[in-house]
């Protein structure tokens, strides 16, 4: 029901909350780590570990929102569930806009939290895999020479004109040379056709920093 590789991080300055949530989630088989402040979590987290953050909204110094911002900026493979003692609509809107899984008002039913944690962990894993995938694609693209990159960029930007002749004209080289490059490119990118190549490129683009990390 849960993967051992995904971790539930509980960040709350209230010790009772941390204890009870840790117990509840561990009993249900989740891997749980607790932190008493946002800063403590930031210091400990490596940025690679996928997981779910059960985050207290109102903490001194660095608030839950601040932490969310930090994590988003680093494109961490984490999903956030806010819990708040006095949840207000404006705050929850901010949190949800910033990609939070949900905004729970204390006290809440455990079942609700567990559902959300599972959803969040799925999301986190998806994020993680997507990131890993895009990393693989990127590695493949990294193998290309400058000329090959040039040809790929032309193919992606102008998917209607992908014949060797058209590209050769565009780049001012012979279609034969283009043909030669095209074979090398398909081999390096581990795709069998130009259609697959464009699909792969769009996947990479999706995971490239600067784009919205939307679900």
């Amino acid at each position, binding site marked *: 029901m849960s993967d051992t590789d995904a971790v539930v991080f509980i960040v709350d300055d209230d010790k009772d909350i941390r204890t*009870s949530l840790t*117990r509840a989630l561990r009993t249900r088989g989740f891997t749980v780590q607790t932190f008493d402040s946002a800063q403590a979590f930031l210091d400990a987290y490596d940025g690679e570990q996928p997981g779910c953050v059960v985050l207290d909204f109102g*903490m001194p*110094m660095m608030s839950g929102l601040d932490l969310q911002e930090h994590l988003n900026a680093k494109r961490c493979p984490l999903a956030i569930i806010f819990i708040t003692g006095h949840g207000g609509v404006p705050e929850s809107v901010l949190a949800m806009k910033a990609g939070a899984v949900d905004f729970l008002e*204390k006290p809440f*039913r*455990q079942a609700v939290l567990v559902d959300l944690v599972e959803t969040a962990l799925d999301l986190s894993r998806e994020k993680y895999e997507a990131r890993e995938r895009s990393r693989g694609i990127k590695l493949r693209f990294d193998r290309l020479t400058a000329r090959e990159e040039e040809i790929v960029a032309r193919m992606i930007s102008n998917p209607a004109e992908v014949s060797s002749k058209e590209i050769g004209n565009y780049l001012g080289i012979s279609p034969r040379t283009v043909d030669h490059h095209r074979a090398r490119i398909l081999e390096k990118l581990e795709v069998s056709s130009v259609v697959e190549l464009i699909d792969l490129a769009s996947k990479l683009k999706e995971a490239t920093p600067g784009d919205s990390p939307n679900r």
Partner: protein
Amino acid sequence: MRNSLGLLLAIGLAGLQFVAVLAVVFSSYVTSERALLDHARSLLSDVGTNTIAHSTGFLRPARAAAELSARLAQTDVIASDRPELLEKLLFQQLQLAPQFAGLFYGSEGGDFVYVMRSDGPGPFRSKFIRVQDGVRSTELIWRNDAFEVVERRMDPEDTYDPRVRPWYQRARDQRTTIWTDPYIFFTSQQPGITLASPVMSGVDGIRGIVGVDIEISDISDFLAQLEIGSHGKALIIHDNGDVIAHPNKDLLKTTDEDGTLRFANIRTFDDPIAQAAFSQLTQDGKVPVARETLSQFEYNGETYVSVVMPVMSEKLPWTIAAYAPENDFTSEIKLNRRMNIWIAALVAATTGLAGLALAQFIYKPVRAFAVRSALISQGELDPEEPLPKTYQELENANAMLMEQIAARRETELEYGQTFALSSRGMAQVAPESGQFIRVNDRFCEITGYSPSELLGMTFTDICYREEAPFLLLDGQHGAETSEINHEMRCRRKDGETIWTAVNAIMIHNQEGKALHVVLTLDDITLTKRKEEKISQLNKDLSNLSRDNTMGQMAAGLAHELNQPLTAIAQNADTALLMIKGVPEADPELRQVLDEIEEQSLRAGEIIRALRAFIRKDEGTRTDFDFVELLDQTKRLVIAEAHEVGAEIATELGHLPQANANRVQVAQVLVNLLRNAIEAVAENPGKDRLVTVHARQRGPQILVCVTDNGPGVDPDLTLFTQFETTKPGGMGLGLSICRAIVQENGGQLWHEPAETGGARFCFTLDASADA
């Protein structure tokens, strides 16, 4: 009004001169008058004395002759039986004294020898009466100066008997020499007196009487010769009132009804002046004068002086009286005196005029000085103009005056510049009318009027009438309130109402007369508004404290309760999960845990509902200037800070507008500042410093209140309600603050400060417009 120097000089030099001359004239007038009268009296007195001496001298030979004749007769030198010898003796005596009218001898026997001056055939006539054997014969013999007989004849008709005559009888009775009263001699019809001396025989016997007739008209001649002034007269009055001597002899005699001649009495005397002067002397029948009496009387409108001498002797009871018109003595002097008065008047007028001229001369430089001073004071003359020729004293005075003027001008200039350049509104106000006399630029700036507009106005025109200073400015009160400080509202020309601080001082001169009012005006509208804002904030805060502390407490409580409730619910659910796989578990335990979970969730619902209810009462969030709010908040706690000697410093970055509930933020600040002040108050002898930092941090404003107090005890759990280090505290402050900040979208936390003290920070949303 002080006397002018010119007037004083004129009075001094002319008036005193005049008075002095008058005094001299008056004094000499009085003294000369008295001297004149004294002179007149002594003159009259001398006349009396002279007359007495003359009369006595005139009569003395008669007495001597009579006594000599009597002695000779006594010693038988003259025997009555030898009348020829007696005749010759008497003849010799008669020749000796011209005043003698005749000498005679009458014997007890009736014989009589009489030698007298005569107008007849010879200058002398002798009369012999012889009685022999009862037969008497009378023979008359006229002789010349050589005693030679000129004619001789008998007079048979004669019946004369000496022994019946009054002089004979008185002399015989008194056995001593007697004087008769004056009478008119029968023969010569001249006034005269007779002196008779008895010729004794033995011790007591009388042989006969020797007599001398003396004509006293000579005394009148003497009186006529006397000069008593021009019109004075002397006369001799017998004690029976008969006037026996007078310069006018004709007046002496009067004829009785029977044809006999007698003296005129003073009461009927034909010299009316003498009659007026002396008639009352004889009212008692005797002239009573015992001593020299001087008197003054009026007759016919003219003043006379008179003197009455005492009677010459008992035997000659005659009184010398003299009178003279006063003018005889004083006219010359009076004339002289009139002249003197004229001269004196002339001198007085001349010296007076000279005095006036002198006064004018002396006063002229003084007046010129006065005029110059007046011109300088009116600013029509430059004080540097050289002083016209004048006195040393005035030059000194001028030098001092010029110094004073220079000093005063400098002061005035300084005052004027102070007045004109003052950063405060200043005006001078007339005490009676209340009108502005002078205003400075700042005054115009504050009131919005131009100087020329203000000069016709009073303070009442620009201010609300009910304010106190008008009592002073209207001059409707005593000097007891000569200064007023007041904050009041004024109307600017544009109709705007401004708050001003007015200081009005009544300036008095040394006599206590009100000169003007100096008015100082400050525009305190901004300060006033600030104060109003602070006071409003204070009011809001206390309202918030009073009305919302429970609400805040509930809100804080709700928040804090949610934490354990969450834990309870989680734990109950976990416990349920745990006993799921335990078949022997009591089903009731499952129910208990179910209920625990449900009840904690229900508690959460209740709290949510409560919070929703409280949230309705919260103020709305607005944009506001945090720096201004901090400034106002600081002023609310500055008194507490000063009380413990703490200083509140601020370090502010550039801040956008904040967006929050302003009053709530103020409450948080006040709470944090108070905590900090209380913390630093525990510092023993260290600086007690509270610092407020504020800076922008992203879309928020970060505010930190740092103190250098002892710091927060690490064992203490902050932000927990009902947990406190303060003896009287409820432990709500920080938790409420945190609740407030959180509800305004911020965070509030504590961190240790570098100084070892405490630092509390919170965040506020910046305005979206910023």
